[in-house]
């Protein structure tokens, strides 16, 4: 766990204001604690940093405290958040699809139903690539090879049970193949997985668009398809759906409130997020990071999370990762 204090003069000032003029601004928090259940540098940490940058830029909130509790795709951080932040209306946790998968695969006793879904903020499409020298020119070629002998087509991607593995399993299932037979080669990060692809060690690779975009642009990897409902501007490749594979997956990230916050506090936090998402600072962050701004708040987001839990549990069961 790490703490980072931004003790700008402004921050001190606003804290002082919060103490002195408390009752006046009681409704909206004047400082925000962001709990990141992952290590600094990853996607959730970047989301936290982008929220901070956007809110500062648009003068929504200027005092932040970011806390990290990394481990196991959020399965280590979530129990800590649930037990230590109860009722804190000025604290949000970053989370997303990866956490849904990790909680299921690890049979975690603590679930996302114990925190308060506030908003889905971003989505990132997954892309399926092959090395430049690969005989597979289109997604159809790859699918044909999988249908012929699924074990022969090896996929490199992130850790087992993560977004990349889930997509591989969904594709196999939609082709009528056994997801467990997919030759999935798990790597701990984007770097080693990309190296395996560049060295022509595996047939194909799956990862977030951002991870592979530069290699694709340089012509070292060929993009065959993206997993989003619509094509992605960065990558010249069809969607899976238009290629006849009925699969859609977005690596979404969002924010959650602490358990036991009042309905008022929940509404204030959602209003805060909505205000940020409408501002120019957030638009800049989305563009810079290559994320889709797929804002969904409140009850609609809660429903979405519930559906994702059911969907992901099913696919992880098919993959043999949920006992």
């Amino acid at each position, binding site marked *: 766990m790490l703490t980072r204090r931004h003790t700008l003069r402004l921050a001190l000032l606003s804290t002082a204001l919060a103490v002195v003029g408390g009752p006046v601004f009681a409704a909206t928090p004047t400082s925000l604690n962001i709990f990141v259940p992952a290590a600094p540098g990853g996607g959730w940490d970047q989301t936290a940093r982008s929220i901070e*940058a956007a809110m500062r830029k648009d003068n929504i909130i200027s005092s932040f405290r970011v806390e990290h509790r990394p*481990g196991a795709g959020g399965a280590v951080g979530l129990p800590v958040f649930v037990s230590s932040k109860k009722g804190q209306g000025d604290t949000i946790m970053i989370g997303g699809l990866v956490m849904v998968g990790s909680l299921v695969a690890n049979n*975690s006793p603590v679930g996302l139903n114990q925190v308060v879904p506030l908003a889905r903020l971003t989505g990132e499409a997954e892309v399926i690539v092959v090395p430049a020298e690969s005989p597979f020119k289109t997604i159809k070629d790859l699918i044909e090879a999988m249908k012929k002998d699924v074990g022969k087509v090896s996929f490199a991607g992130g850790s087992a*049970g993560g977004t990349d593995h889930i997509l591989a399993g969904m594709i196999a299932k939609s082709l009528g193949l056994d997801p467990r037979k997919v030759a999935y080669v798990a790597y701990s990060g984007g770097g080693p997985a990309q190296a395996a692809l560049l060295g022509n060690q595996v047939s194909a690779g799956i990862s977030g668009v951002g991870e592979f975009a530069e290699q694709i642009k340089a012509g070292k990897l060929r993009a065959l398809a993206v997993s989003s409902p619509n094509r992605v501007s960065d990558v010249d490749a069809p969607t899976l759906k238009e290629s006849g594979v009925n699969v859609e997956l977005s690596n979404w990230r969002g924010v959650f409130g602490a358990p036991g916050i009042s309905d008022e506090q929940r509404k204030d936090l959602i209003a805060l997020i909505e205000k940020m998402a409408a501002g120019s600072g957030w638009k800049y962050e989305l563009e810079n990071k290559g994320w889709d701004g797929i804002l969904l708040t409140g009850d609609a987001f809660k429903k979405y999370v519930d559906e994702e839990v059911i969907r992901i549990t099913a696919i992880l069961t098919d993959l043999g990762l949920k006992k």
Partner: protein
Amino acid sequence: MDTLAHLANGFSLALTPINLLWCLVGVTVGTAIGVLPGLGPALTIALLLPLTYKVDATSAFILFAGIYYGAMYGGSTTSILLNTPGESASIVTSLEGNRMARNGRAGAALSTAAIGSFVAGTIGTIGLTFVAEPIVRFALKFGPAEYFSLMVLSFVTVSAVLGNSALRGLTALVVGIFLGMIGIDLQTGQPRFAFGVTELLDGINVLIVAVGLFAVGETLYLAAHGKSGPPEVLEVKDSIWMSAADWGRSWKAWIRGSLVGFPIGAMPAGGAEVPTFLSYWMEKRFSKHQHEFGTVGAIEGVAGPEAANNASAAGVLVPMLALGLPTSATAAIMLSAFQSYGINPGPQLLDTQPALVWSLIASLYIGNVMLLVLNLPLVGLWVKILKVPEPLLYAGILVFATIGTYGISRSVVDLLLLYAMGIMGYLMRRFDFPTAPVIIGMILGPLAEQEFRRAMTISQGDLTIFLTRPLSLTLLIIAFLGVAGPWIWSRLRKPAAV
């Protein structure tokens, strides 16, 4: 423009007063965090990322590179003086380094580590400047089968630390492999041996085990079996600097260590620890001073691994700058810093951002010189730490180890693990089990297992994949010769002698 012209341009950008200052700040901070167990360069750079909002790109990367190199220097200091490695690539340094320190040769050990780091860092940086392309092409030839064979070769190195009883040494190795298995299995996503403890899901940090076994274990051993009477002070026997003989024994080890460390560092799954094991094994094998290893401490055993870990640090930057591949935690965070400047790191980085990349490389040369200038005079100061009476010194080590471990994750579970490992270290020492194989098993075991399973997934369970790929076969043959070579050699020579 050719390489030299680019480099000259890089120097002109890196030598501005403000960038020199950033470089100095970087290497100083880096040395400090290298000294502390726990806080590594990756975390430090991550915590400094908000700086990128305020500082221009060149300065920020010069700072980050300084921190990275500095941490590699600093890690050896506590390994040698306190048997408490500051980061995982310095664990091997403590094997001989601490023995030397306890035999009054701390100055020579620290000097050979500092100068060796400088030599290796410079060789590595030269490699990065001139042979990055071919090295990267070679490194990409390594697939899971080759990595597995490399790990098999690395396992041979355990023979250098087995001690008197092979059975005891191998038992320790198996304990290490078991500790390495704890946590979520990457290939299946399932937790192993975590017993429902969420803190164990991501595995046990190898530094906690090393510090527990080495530093805490030794402290407990001394407390239990130490002499009573007036406290004894470790003596600094000879001059604190290296003698002519030390130079003669060190320089070859520096070169050998650099040559092992740089290419393995450049491999996407090579890591910084594997070359230190290989270097230690080589030094012990080829040394004419076998009796000093594990007793009074052999200077080659410090010089080689220290050079290997610094050269591998330069190696890690090769795939990062040549291909935009983040192959270590530190490289991944540096790449994410590129993004906050709107620079997309990738294979075209060298073409699109030549000024930035070359000033970064130039700053590595400068940083290396600064680190040498910073660290050598400190040797005299560091050695004084050993003048502290033993009971106080060991109490200090215990406090230091505890704070460092708590700093890694602020988790009480980690502290309990540290002390559990300390008790295990005490028992192992008491019953004459070597502790170093535990660390080797813990680092190599999971690497070998993951690569083996990756290779099996790709080959659909065909074991001949390890023998049909030339690089893999070559590595296995070297490993075989490493084990059986001396025996075959003696068989071949006997008839000749008769």
